[in-house]
């Protein structure tokens, strides 16, 4: 059963992937250093389908796309947060990781909770309980429909809504 990895407010991209472990520095295996300082067990314990649950201003700091890319390589498909920093939010959509915003759901979830995410419908199931998540805006859904904005552009040679 997939689980919740819960983090607090102001999770920054240096937390997610410290600069010294950029693919540029260490090569293809960079994703194994995800959360190397903050939660050294993360990369070995994370299972595809697990979700991140975060507080406010998630992903602030450096524009390094390889931070969320490390998470995607580990199998992350979605994040539920109270709010996102601007560049990180764009990077998630570009990589096809769905950025849900749901402050009350974040408060209701605990680290280690076993959950099931119905991605398309924005439903999160925990035990017998179903939590509703607010999906991203139309513009971004159009891109996510193709997998990512990159995939959308490759197919149509234009941006969503253009």
């Amino acid at each position: 059963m997939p689980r919740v990895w819960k983090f607090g407010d102001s999770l920054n991209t240096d937390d997610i992937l410290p600069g010294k472990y950029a693919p540029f520095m260490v090569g293809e295996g960079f994703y194994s250093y995800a959360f190397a300082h903050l939660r050294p067990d993360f990369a070995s314990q994370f299972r595809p389908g697990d979700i991140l649950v975060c507080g406010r201003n998630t992903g602030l700091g450096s524009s390094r796309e390889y931070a969320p890319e490390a998470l995607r390589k580990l199998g992350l498909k979605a994040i539920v947060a109270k709010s996102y920093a601007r560049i990180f939010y764009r990077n998630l959509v570009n990589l096809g990781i769905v950025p849900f915003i749901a402050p009350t759901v974040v408060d209701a979830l605990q680290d280690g909770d076993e959950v099931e995410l119905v991605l398309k419908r924005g439903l999160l199931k925990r035990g017998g309980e179903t939590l509703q998540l607010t999906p991203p805006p139309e513009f971004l859904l159009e891109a996510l429909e193709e997998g990512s904005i990159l995939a959308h552009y490759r197919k149509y040679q234009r941006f969503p809504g253009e």
Partner: protein
Amino acid sequence: MNPGELRGLTLAEKILSFKAGRRVMAGELVVVPVDQVMVVDSIAGSFFKRLDELSATPRYPERVTIVIDHVAPAANVEVAKEQRAIRQWGARHGCRVFDVGRGICHQVLIEERLALPGGLVVGSDSHSTTYGAVACFGTGMGATDIALAAASGRTWLRVPESIKVTLKGSLAAGVSAKDAALEMIRLLRADGASYRSVELHLTDGAESLSRGARMTLANLTVEAGAECGLVVPSGEILALYEVPGWLYPDVEAVYSDHLEIDLAALTPRVSVPFFVDNVETVEAVMGKPVDQVFVGTCTNGRLEDLHEVAAVLKRKRVAPGVRMLVIPASSQVLEEATADGTLLTLLQAGATIGTPGCGPCMGRHQGVLAPGEVCVSTSNRNFRGRMGAADAEIYLTSPAVAAASAVAGVIATPERLERVVHA
């Protein structure tokens, strides 16, 4: 576009309206042409990969600039391979490459006049807000967005709401634009300007702030989450650039928030671990022992910053046991600091000089911190583990406070230096 159609708009709205070719306002999504796509060495590999995935090449090669600055010169074989690939790729596609030693991307784009008033520059580095110093809409993005911008010549943006920040009056001696920027972040907090433009109005003497000081201000707006930080053109900017007549916000422009900082009343500020918006007065942390002092980065590595440092270090010595690293922001800064004697003053005081570039700012080389060490830095981020060991502490200050701390061996202001040294 008829300037009359731009009535009642903020600077961000005006620039994006011009780019979109129609009047656009905060909240709208626009797809707009970009003047420059800036790529840094550390993401160039991802950038090339994304272009390959798109089966695309740069649509306008002259609008793509790659700067080798984040680990320059190369620290290991992995980096050396990537940087060689950058040179080869640049030559193959006819894109500009600034190689090892030319300097930090943002400084170089300003010096090379690739970021100009009224322009739009997207960069693969969050501090691309720096271009706002010359009223150029600069914003940071990840590798995929940057690759899409290079492939299409366009990017998508949500037209941001604007926060008006008025800086008025003149700074007291020993206080700098860095202190004003940290005060702004203290007031806004780390997400206070998320998805928004910070529009900086300099009045009642503050117009005299230099281009470099404006770069420090615009640079740090991203630490409050800003999409861009635009300084309304005045003073030196009008002498250095041809500023289009429309490039001013209108009095009827609508702002989501307004705050004012009285520069004359400002005292030195410090950002304490582990978040940039943990801003206090330097007074509050005075006396904290220091292992390393780092002067440099896109925030504070300019000639005027080195001048402030030299003024404090003149006829003094860096305290025993303290490493003082000075890394000029560009080759031009290094050359000017050599020509005017600034470097000699720094060297005689016991500082060491590094290759123009980002230096140890993101903990990759040239001054990585050991566990438990304390660094006073003129850079822009003090996140946990940013410059090396996870528990090393980074205190962000102005160049003058960094220099005084190097001499005192503890966190100090220039004014209090004598007292601390002789205490």
